[in-house]
């Protein structure tokens, strides 16, 4: 079962929830894997102190132009929808950070002058922290696209464990790439106007993927009632509320676990873990009543035919 912990607004406490729930469930003796999918700014490792034993470079392909064969016709540039290959006065320039690795330029070149070569965009790293399995992606600074690295990291998900996925902030394509195909999404928010605004967008985003969701309200006594009202109106379960406790902020600021330094919160995190698993278990299984995408629908249809 894969649970994504996401949010609309940054800094609401996704990583805090993810690491504390991961450690809580691990200590209950269940196999857990934590995937830090915020590849632009991964933070989960700061709370777990892992020793990374497997580091793998992740590459994407980009065009390489053989200048001997190239006649400067510019067809590649005309075909590229992303501005990654550009023709100016018969000279071809490549902007690899813009490339989506579609292969279109190589296909289009009448001289077959373009080959695709791998380019490293970041790393995947794995570690065990006691009984907890941990993996993260780290995007190289200067790289524009997080999505291919997030996809590579998700391929490392352990089908036999409870997988907790710390998603990137926002509602754009990195968040969607992290969250799609999960069983359940836990959205972390704060009860402020910014928190509510971004939560509504995150809810919309998750609903386009037809995924069940729940909300955790962090710093719950801070702002106003609008987030609770929104959740009620939208029939979104509130899975936990954590108060605005300065000690929590201080513990997290040092990179420590709440469940270790403030044991009075251990029960809250145990309850949150149970609630998440309960809510996720209630949702239709993927490929069942609510397949996630077109491909799943096709697979279903083809199964009926067979």
């Amino acid at each position, binding site marked *: 079962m894969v649970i994504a912990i996401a949010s609309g607004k940054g*800094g609401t406490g996704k990583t805090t929830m993810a690491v504390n729930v991961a450690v809580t469930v691990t200590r209950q003796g269940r196999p857990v894997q934590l995937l830090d999918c915020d590849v632009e700014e991964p933070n989960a490792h700061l709370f777990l102190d892992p020793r990374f034993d497997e580091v793998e470079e992740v590459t994407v392909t980009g065009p390489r132009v053989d200048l001997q064969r190239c006649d400067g016709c510019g067809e590649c540039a005309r075909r590229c929808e992303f501005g990654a290959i550009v023709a100016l006065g018969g000279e071809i320039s490549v902007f690899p950070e813009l490339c989506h690795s579609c292969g279109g330029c190589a296909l289009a070149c009448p001289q077959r002058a373009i080959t695709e070569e791998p380019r490293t965009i970041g790393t995947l790293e794995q570690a065990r922290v006691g009984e907890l399995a941990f993996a993260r992606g780290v995007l190289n600074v200067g790289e524009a696209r997080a999505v291919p690295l997030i996809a590579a990291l998700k391929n490392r998900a352990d089908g036999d464990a409870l997988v907790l996925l710390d998603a990137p902030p926002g509602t754009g394509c990195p968040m969607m790439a992290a969250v799609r195909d999960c069983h359940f999404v836990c959205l972390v928010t704060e009860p*402020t106007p910014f928190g509510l605004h971004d939560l509504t967008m995150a809810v919309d985003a998750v609903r386009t993927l037809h995924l069940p969701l729940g909300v955790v309200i962090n710093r719950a006594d801070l702002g106003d009632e609008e987030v609770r009202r929104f959740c009620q109106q939208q029939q979104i379960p509130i899975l936990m509320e954590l108060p605005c406790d300065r000690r929590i902020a201080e513990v997290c600021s040092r990179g420590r676990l709440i469940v270790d330094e403030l044991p009075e919160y251990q029960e809250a995190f145990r309850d949150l873990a149970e609630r998440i698993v309960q809510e996720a278990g209630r949702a239709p299984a993927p490929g069942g009543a609510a397949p996630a995408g077109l491909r799943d629908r096709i697979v279903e249809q083809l199964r009926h035919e067979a």
Partner: protein
Amino acid sequence: MKQMTVISGKGGTGKTSLTASFAALAHNAIVADCDVDAPDLALVLAPRVEKQSPFVGGKVARVDAGRCTGCGLCVESCRFEATALHGPPGDAAEHTCAVDPHSCEGCGVCVQLCPVEACRLEPTVTGEWFISQTRFSPLVHAQLGVGQDNSGKLVSCVRQEARALAEREERDLVLCDGPPGIGCPVIASLSGVDLLLIVVEPTVSALHDFERVADLARHFQIPALVCINKHDLNETVAAEIEKRADRLGVERAGRIPYDEAVVGAQLHRRTVVEHTNGPLSAAIRNIWQRIEQRLDLASEHRAP
């Protein structure tokens, strides 16, 4: 005319709250909300929209089922698993291809390959952008559609429109509220600016992310200032951040104390400097003064 962007690396450090206060303090600026994923500046600046435009951020492939022969070449060659065969069960001969617009990246490979020209790319509206008036200055902002790709493109659009407006109105500054992270929307929000303000909080997470975003600033050769928000939450880490900043060549712009008035201001839909007058407000004003000095803006509005 100068340009600056407020970034952070880590989310939730206070970029938007600070930018809103800077908008209140700036004398002759255009404000741009470059966090097109989660544009929150409007919640405090209360813009009156004067111009609204759809944004065509990309293209999506579409198959004309009437022409499609179901050869499946597009399915084989699509690198994003966006095309699939579908049709009545039990009759493979009647199958045609269809594109899942959520997965399609609009690359056009299927268009190139289709032997019967059944596939074409269609421009898609992926967001909207706006030029608005606020009680302080014009605001250029945008909203990216849910889950849309190419936020960098919409950010660039906001930047361009803000720059053009600043030039038309002879403004001194374009002040941009940036997104969190280091990826394409951040890169689009900082390219070509004169100064960056990196807003951090005194946590190990923010320190870690600060190094990466400072690295990004160096990569693009843009001078940067750092300010530590909520500094009194952890003075040890605050000091560590300042030491790290000194080593990285990022100038210290100041520190802001933790104060629940920041949320109070938000709840009242006001900027912090409008809402309160104590040490919190003073700290923000000092940082803004430092920014004006660095951008050499102060001289532009001093009375002769």
